[in-house]
């Protein structure tokens, strides 16, 4: 079976995110003053062929752990669709 595994990667909470900061400035210029913080991460979708949903999730976890996210600076979340 083929599964879509979605991996959300975000910069660690305490880390300064310069990209988010720049976008925050843009939103302020738009007049959206209610926006208090912006943090930007990545969304990675994998098509995975596996026999069960669990197996697909495991492969996604391994991909995230070994390559797609760097635990020194990022956290990730794996979901199967």
């Amino acid at each position, binding site marked *: 079976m083929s599964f879509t595994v979605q991996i959300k990667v975000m910069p660690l909470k305490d*880390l*300064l995110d310069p*990209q988010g*900061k720049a976008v925050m400035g843009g939103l302020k210029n738009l007049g959206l003053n209610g926006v208090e913080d912006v943090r930007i991460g990545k969304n990675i979708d994998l098509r995975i062929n596996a026999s069960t949903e669990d197996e697909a999730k495991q492969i996604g976890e391994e991909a995230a752990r070994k390559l797609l996210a*760097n635990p*020194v600076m990022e956290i990730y979340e794996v979901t199967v669709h």
Partner: protein
Amino acid sequence: MKFGVVVFPGSNCDRDMQDALEQDLGQKVLMLWHKDKDLSMFSTDDCIVLPGGFSYGDYLRCGAIARFSPMMQSVIEFAQNGGKVLGICNGFQILCESGLLPGALLRNSHQQFACKNVFLKDARNEVYKIPVAHGEGRYFATEDILNGLEENHQILYLYCDESGHVTEAANPNGSMRNIAGICNTERNIYGLMPHPERACSSILGNVDGRKIMHQLFFAESLVS
């Protein structure tokens, strides 16, 4: 002692490094293609250099994909056997991604690409003027790792001002504790963001890079 300079798709300081080593420092250099694996012509007295640039387009994270290239598998083994490895700029990012050096290099805190001369100082308080050129050079590691680096004298160079004062204003990218370059505990793997290879020839108006290269490769022991 001879040098190997690895060429990844997107490396752009490989020839600068080759020129500096051959023309300015009179060293023997072999260029190494990222798809090859053979390092049998090198002994642990030799040095493999990972040059600056944008390996694999900086896709995903700087250095993240280069780490899995065939040549990097051999370089990791070479380093683990005690061979010298130097990573400059993107090379430093690759070393951190490979786990050969601790920490990571993040987007510059001021959100801009930094391309200018900066001042560095070593553990002996000697000051050097060396160019930097990077968008992701903000050294980051946990407090525990930073303390360990200090205790073991693994911090090779700090960003400072012209008179050697380590100040926030002299930090070109927001690196923690003004760190510009570090080494591993065994002191055979070095990573730095600034480009000494761009400051080795008098025709370029700055030869401070030669002093850095001498210190890294030819000093009796690395200053600690």
